[in-house]
């Protein structure tokens, strides 16, 4: 029997059009070796070895999220980690020849390191770091926000190993006018235009110099998986995960707020709250920094049917961007009353925290269990969708699951 995928890969792009039954505009721009998604439809075999219950929102570029119950592990394994790519995953990724250039207005001298140099010259650190997509929860905004309709699962807390960005910046030497760092990766633009940057974001110099801001080459003790940035990824935990650039081969130390792709036209919210649907001029949009306090119920999976006599164990994680989580509460009566959960301290700064509780339901019926975290400055998650913003970022509304007691 003909292997359909190989057959398709070997055939010319012209035949794609025949199969689609319509001309494929920009066919000449499709990167070699890239299988257009419409041909891949009946081959849903877990991409990148992801768990089969992960939700694939987009296969060009890859955007995949976990479901709440898949996030039950204390340390998120690669198989359950969300993928948010903006462009095409680079094909030539060779750790033994990988180079990183540090440049920009605010370095004393441009310097290039091999990945081997970075690994051997600088001390290694390992931290559990929470990475959440800025648009996690976008699906609930109204009027709807454009983009990937993430629900709850675009968040992870893996164990990252690498060198501190501040150690390498000290080695390079930065000047006093440094304001921001900006990363550049080797992923390519979806349009096929090789001159177009995909995404080049960054963080203020103060965040860049934190102990936990890493140039990571290992995740959960293994090489960083390809879809997560192999062989070198910037990790800035607690901030929109887009600040943690993948496939990094250049970092610029800027004397201005970095102006790379998706620094200016993405990951911004109105500086002051606006009515839903308001048009906002660019000057009134501010860059997202720390992510807000949030929690997720990872056990049980929503939809559990239990016996009336049962005491139900529930658990999950809570995180608060740059801050700690102070308390987590749960409610089974739509917020009329709240009970406190047991909360563990974070393994290290910027790691999510495990919480748990057990519930005895008063009688048979349909229940929703709602969880609500409070950060170290006293801010709580809202039960309704927070302030509307045009691109649908920062939805930290309480997570809830359905339970039937019979």
């Amino acid at each position, binding site marked *: 029997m003909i292997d359909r995928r190989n057959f398709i890969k070997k055939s010319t792009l012209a035949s794609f059009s025949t199969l689609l039954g*319509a001309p494929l505009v920009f066919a000449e721009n499709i990167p070699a070796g890239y299988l257009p998604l*419409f041909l891949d439809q009946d081959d849903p075999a877990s991409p990148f070895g992801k768990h089969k219950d992960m939700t694939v929102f987009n*296969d060009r570029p890859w955007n995949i999220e976990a479901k709440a119950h898949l996030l039950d592990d204390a340390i998120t394994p690669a198989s359950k980690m969300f993928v948010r790519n903006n462009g095409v995953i680079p094909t030539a990724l060779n750790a033994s020849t990988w180079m990183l250039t540090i440049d920009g207005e605010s370095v004393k001298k441009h310097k290039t390191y091999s990945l081997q140099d970075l690994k051997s010259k600088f001390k290694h650190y390992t931290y559990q770091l929470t990475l959440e997509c800025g648009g996690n929860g976008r699906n*609930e905004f109204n009027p709807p926000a454009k983009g990937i309709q993430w629900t709850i699962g675009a968040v992870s807390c893996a164990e990252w190993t690498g060198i501190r960005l501040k150690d390498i910046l000290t080695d390079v030497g930065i000047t006093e006018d440094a304001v921001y760092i900006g990363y550049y990766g080797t992923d390519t633009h979806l349009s096929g235009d090789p001159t177009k940057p995909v995404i080049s974001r960054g963080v203020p110099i103060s965040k860049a110099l934190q102990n936990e801001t890493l140039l990571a080459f290992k995740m959960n003790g293994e090489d960083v998986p390809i879809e997560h940035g192999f062989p070198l990824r910037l990790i800035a935990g607690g901030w929109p995960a887009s600040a943690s650039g993948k496939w990094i081969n250049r970092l610029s130390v800027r004397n201005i707020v970095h102006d790379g792709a998706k620094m200016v036209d993405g990951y911004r919210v109105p500086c002051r709250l606006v009515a839903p649907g308001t048009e906002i001029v660019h000057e009134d949009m501010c860059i997202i920094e720390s992510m807000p306090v949030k929690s997720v119920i990872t056990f049980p999976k929503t939809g559990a*049917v239990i016996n009336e006599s049962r005491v139900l164990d529930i658990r999950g994680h809570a995180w608060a961007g740059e801050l700690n989580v102070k308390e987590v509460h749960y409610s089974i009566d739509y917020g009329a009353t709240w009970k406190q959960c047991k909360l563990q301290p974070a393994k290290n700064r910027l790691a999510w925290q495990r919480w748990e509780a057990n519930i005895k339901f008063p009688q048979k019926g349909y229940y929703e269990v709602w969880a609500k975290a409070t950060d170290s400055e006293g801010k709580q998650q809202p*039960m309704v969708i927070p302030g509307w913003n045009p691109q649908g970022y920062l939805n930290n509304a309480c997570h809830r699951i359905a339970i039937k007691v019979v």
Partner: protein
Amino acid sequence: MEDRKLLQIVQAIFHFTILVLVLTVLLGAVGIYLHYSPKPLFTQKTKSTTIEDGSITEIFTDSIHNATGFIQGEHLELVIENCTGCHSSKLIIQNRASKEGWMGMIKWMQETQNLPDLGENEAKIVSYLATYYAPEEQGRRKPLTEIQWYELE
């Protein structure tokens, strides 16, 4: 007389042999066809629809375009041609917007993502999108839906 009878018998055997050969070839062809693409013969819900100019055939199941997942509708072929070269149809299907909202997305792709001017096709594409992928009123927090109930062990 006997020669004629013999000729008739030979002819009959010849015709029979030809018939058997033809049947074998036909059955073989059907067999090979079924082996390589068994679906089209047995899929009851699938309906072949000829789009607009009559030259291209598209397959839909319950009004959903099999290859892309789009809802069947006027100008769908323009959406496929102009939108799915760069990104997945899934990106469109999961979004909802008004006419203005879809036009805003097209403008954004033209300004930042190398999408060329769509000319007279723009209005048709926007009309399709705003018709089949329009916003739904969902309030400040929707009820939980599509709950898959299971017995917790």
